[in-house]
């Protein structure tokens, strides 16, 4: 016990005030709005009223899950190959994989907007072969593509971090003992990369299910997601804080549920940061 111990606890007090005022209180207010009506009386109508939006909630979950699955399938081989490169090359490649992430995601999404347009580059290219024009933009496929493009590095990074630690001799041992490529994958590689897989799933699924920009820019008006609904209640034309709060509470519940499946302990969460 040093004399520093007792006194320096007070160093945290400005933060504790800040945390209470700007992290805890806002969430409490969201809860309050979710369970009251415009006059401030307790009601469950906001929550039960969400039944009308079941299709939007279902669409959000399906599209986010599809994007997460595609990211996993793409990122798994890339991360593995990356982890087997020479260390100097690994650093270089990792930097190149992360570089697009430094661009604002609005610009990255805008790039796809101009590629997928009816008279965009892809359709003009296809036109050279007499194909199309295909209806690419304003589809749910375009929304999933936007999610994959924006969040793929979030899957690669945790997978790669865990795979570098896998010793090549473990894989060779499995091969020596007669395992074919498929068995090496299912019995050795996937089980050993599990913590990276679960972290990656959370890191892609959470921003995917809560986005409203990607769906607006690439999905047109017909592919509303939960995020769009919430935005409409707060800044859009719908203007209903109570309903918006109820939607937010449900979105938080979905995210928490997803994380309770995928995040085992706080140490992993610390690694996410």
């Amino acid at each position, binding site marked *: 016990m040093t004399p520093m111990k*007792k006194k320096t606890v007070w160093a945290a007090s400005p933060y504790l005030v*800040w945390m209470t005022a*700007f992290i805890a209180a806002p969430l409490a207010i969201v809860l309050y709005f979710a369970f009251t009506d415009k006059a401030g009386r307790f009601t469950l109508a906001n929550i039960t009223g969400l039944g009308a939006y079941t299709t939007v909630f279902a669409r959000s979950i399906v599209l986010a899950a599809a994007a997460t699955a595609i990211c996993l399938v793409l990122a798994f*081989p890339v991360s593995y190959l990356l982890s087997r490169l020479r260390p100097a090359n690994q650093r270089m490649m990792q930097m190149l994989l992360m570089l697009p992430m430094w661009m*604002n995601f609005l*610009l990255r999404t805008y790039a796809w907007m101009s590629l997928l347009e009816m008279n965009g580059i892809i359709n003009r290219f296809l036109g050279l072969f007499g194909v199309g024009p295909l209806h690419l933009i304003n589809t749910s496929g375009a929304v999933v593509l936007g999610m994959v493009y924006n969040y793929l590095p979030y899957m690669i990074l945790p997978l790669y971090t865990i795979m570098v630690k896998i010793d090549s001799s473990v894989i060779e041992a499995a091969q020596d003992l007669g395992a074919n490529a498929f068995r090496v994958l299912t019995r050795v590689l996937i089980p050993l990369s599990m913590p990276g897989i679960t972290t990656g799933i959370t890191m892609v699924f959470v*921003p995917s299910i809560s986005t409203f920009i990607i769906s607006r820019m690439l999905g047109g008006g017909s592919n509303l997601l939960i995020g769009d609904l919430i935005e409409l209640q707060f800044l859009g034309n719908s203007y209903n804080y109570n309903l918006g709060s109820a939607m937010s509470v449900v979105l938080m519940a979905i*995210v928490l549920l997803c994380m309770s499946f995928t995040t085992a302990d706080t140490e992993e969460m610390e690694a996410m940061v």
Partner: protein
Amino acid sequence: MKRRRALSNACFVLIFSFLYLPIAVLIAFSFNESKSRSVWGGFSLKWYENLFHNEMVLKSFGVSLAVAFAAASVATVLGTLAAIGISRMSRRARGVVMAVSYVPVVNPEIITGVSLMLLFVVMRTGVNGAVSRLLGREAEPFGFGLGTLLIAHITFCLPYVIFNVGPKLRQLDPAIYDAALDLGCSPRQAFFKVVLPQLTPAILSAFLISLTYSIDDFIISYFTSGTVPTLPIAIYSMTKKRVSPEINALSAILFVGILAIILASNAVDSTRERRLRRAARREEGRG
């Protein structure tokens, strides 16, 4: 072996084309004479010229920089103090504080955005009502703008500072602090001369992380900025309003700027590493 190398290279080529082709096309069309996003009409720099005369973009870039520096500075100081205080807390208190601190990190950004917006709405009603009653006339001292934007940015930067500085603090040897006291330092001197220098790299990286998060943020700013646009908000309204290659020009400038910063920091890292390795070799030679 050779076939595997080829397969691996093909895989990297595919993933890199997926990641970079859209950006390459975006940048290429910033030099397009015509306004089209898909037909090449000749080389021109006019969109760059337009961009440098675009009031909204320049102003919002200034707002973004100012907010980022202010928010990162405040968050770094508050967060470092918090990390020090938290490290001295009882296990239970620490658990509660850390759990709440995780909220902005794991919550979807849109929830952080709307929850702060609701808080500011409630505050606006309360504060303005109270001040109006006090003055006996209508007054609106509190509203959405730079202030709310700053509060929001400090709030989402703080956890990153705590999670950067906290682990470093745990690695510190408490004996060194005690030794400084034994050798005649006052607690204040021991902190500033012994503890703080050891934390400096972690504090600096926390500051830089906060800076980049703040400059890059769109969603939380969108809900808390009122009518004061940051650069991402200006970009958003540009993509919404009309087709203009000025966005492409802006992307090109940002991309080249980011590339330069990353290459420079990598160069600094690798020279430092080389120097360390050389020093280590020299030590070995001496031993």
